[in-house]
């Protein structure tokens, strides 16, 4: 085990796969000599050269379109969109072209590509550089959606995404970039579509994603002091969704809480709540409760942003209120 920051783990994951497979190429804005604006790709340009690690203009449609054209003709490109908010400028490429072309051509085309993007709030950047947009991808058939919460998963799931034969949106929660954690030595690859049970408790199940996972874990510690034993599940991958693992935990505890960074409407937790209501209604001992940001654009000021995003305190209070 080596201790790496989340951003170092991202670079390590890309490097591992570029080393292994000469068809893996990496493009994006400022990803070359600059090492990425979040410094999550430092060293790749020096190690793999300007052909395999290539700077692009500020042209998100061209970046994602080029990745698609390359993927359909034999490469395994990784394309970086600096902030997930910028996906809006190339959503045609993502949602209309990449997501649908395999289906429309009845499998004539495969698109083994990864779109990496810095996602989410906590950095006081305001509403156009802080969105938590996993749900956008989840709503479009044909896209896989992954969001790691730890350095180990940042490397392992990114490697898994690069090896996956289908297009993957890989969301890196930007407030996690500096977080350190143990990453297994040697080759590290995690298959997509597996949730992870991080903590076992008998009273309720808290399901969280990305930056909400450490908050859910901290909340579970505080709840334990109040006599409530919570199971915490890291979803890790929204598509494919590991409903087997999640529903098994819901059945054991009889309660489901989701912790979502996204604004309220149509969050991934709503889909999960619907599935749980459908398939384990008889096992539920109380309402399914979603803890989300309010349905507003995320504000910039620290006090406002902190209050809008689900905090450890809000998770604790919501669970306590609902369990009493």
């Amino acid at each position: 085990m080596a201790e790496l920051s989340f951003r170092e783990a991202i670079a390590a994951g890309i490097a591992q796969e570029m080393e292994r497979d000469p068809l893996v190429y990496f493009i994006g804005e400022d990803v070359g000599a600059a090492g990425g604006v979040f410094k999550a790709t430092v060293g790749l340009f020096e190690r793999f050269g300007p052909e395999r690690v290539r700077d692009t203009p500020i042209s998100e449609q061209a970046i994602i379109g080029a990745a698609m054209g390359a993927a359909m003709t034999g490469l395994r490109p990784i394309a970086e969109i600096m902030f997930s908010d910028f996906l809006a400028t190339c959503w045609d490429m993502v949602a209309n072209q990449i997501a649908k072309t395999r289906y429309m051509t009845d499998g004539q085309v495969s698109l083994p590509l990864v779109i990496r993007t810095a996602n989410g709030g906590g950095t006081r950047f305001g509403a156009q550089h802080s969105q938590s947009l996993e749900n956008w991808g989840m709503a479009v058939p044909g896209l896989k959606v992954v969001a790691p919460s730890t350095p180990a998963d940042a490397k392992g799931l990114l490697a898994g995404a690069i090896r996956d034969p289908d297009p993957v949106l890989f969301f890196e929660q930007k407030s996690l970039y500096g977080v350190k954690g143990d990453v297994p030595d040697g080759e590290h690859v995690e298959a997509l579509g597996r949730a992870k049970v991080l903590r076992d408790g008998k009273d309720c199940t808290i399901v969280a994603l990305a930056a909400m996972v450490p908050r859910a874990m901290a909340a579970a510690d505080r709840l334990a002091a109040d006599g409530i034993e919570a199971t915490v599940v890291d979803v890790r991958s929204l598509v494919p969704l590991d409903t087997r693992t999640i529903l098994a935990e819901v059945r054991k505890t009889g309660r489901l809480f989701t912790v979502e960074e996204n604004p309220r409407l149509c969050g991934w937790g709503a889909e999960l709540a619907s599935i749980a209501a459908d398939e384990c209604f008889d096992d539920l001992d109380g309402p399914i409760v979603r803890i989300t940001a309010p349905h507003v654009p995320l504000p910039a000021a620290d006090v406002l942003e902190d209050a809008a995003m689900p905090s450890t305190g809000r998770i604790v209070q919501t669970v306590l209120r609902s369990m009493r």
Partner: protein
Amino acid sequence: MSTQVQKPPAADIDRPTRLRLYQLMVELRDFEQRAYELFLENLVRGTSHLALGQEAIAAGYAVAMRADDYTFCTYRGHGHTLARGASMAAAMAELLGRGNGMMHGKGGSMHLTDVKHGAMGSYAIVGAHLPIAAGAAWSAQVRKSGQVAVCFFGDGTTNIGAFHEALNLAVVWKLPVVFVCENNQYMEYTPIRSVTAVEHPAADRASAYGLESILTDGNDADVMYDIARQTIGKARAGGGPSLVEALTYRHGGHSRGDPAKYRPEAEVREWLSRDPVKRYRERLLASGVSEAEVNEIETRAQQKVDAATEEARNGAPATVDEIERQVWSDGSAKWRN
């Protein structure tokens, strides 16, 4: 603007190539006319966008391409797809929503794709395929395969952002891609001139990307074949991208429900007199090809379209078990366990 329409090429196009150009144009013309007839019979559902009148561009480029080169085209893409050698019966069946369609009914008229013939897709969101074609060219470049991507699009595309993003990237990365603007004078129902800052929507913008301004007669198959040879050759030799504007005209409306009443009669008459198929027929005859030979090409094309129509019409409707197939590479549509 100093942009000039390029002169016809010197007569160095050999006879078999000329016969092939004519054969392809006639086949594409007959296919589109049959598609229109089947639409009138209410057998073609949804929409369809015919390229009647624009055959010289598809034929000129397809004949000049290597078998493993890539074609990217638009929803007006029947001709470009067939020109690469895709099955006419499979294309017709796709238009009819049959199970024996090119994509088993899952794509339809606007998305004809036949990857094994290099027809990498028909793209129905204006401009989307320009960056994608650049990506295929990037892949060819780094794989050192010698392949070239040719990307066809309409005049309306020149006013969308993806056009400019793709051209800039292609030039900066010196990609082996040829962008061919089929300027059929109308952006859907609106004259392109009335919504564009320059007279020649593609050619006049070439200089913005450091490219030569190329304006050609898109209704002349020899001219198109010649410019195709030049631009594809340049791309294959590592000389980077080209942007070609081919002047042409849609004989019909934008899509199947459009009678195109917005076009002045005199303009339509003028362009019909420059019909690329009729014009090429006359040129072949004048160059010594016999009437019998030309008739033979035309008869064979009709027979091919008849056979394709028959095969398509006899196909069973697309089957509903297709619905949940091929979202993912494992063939499934599974999103949970």
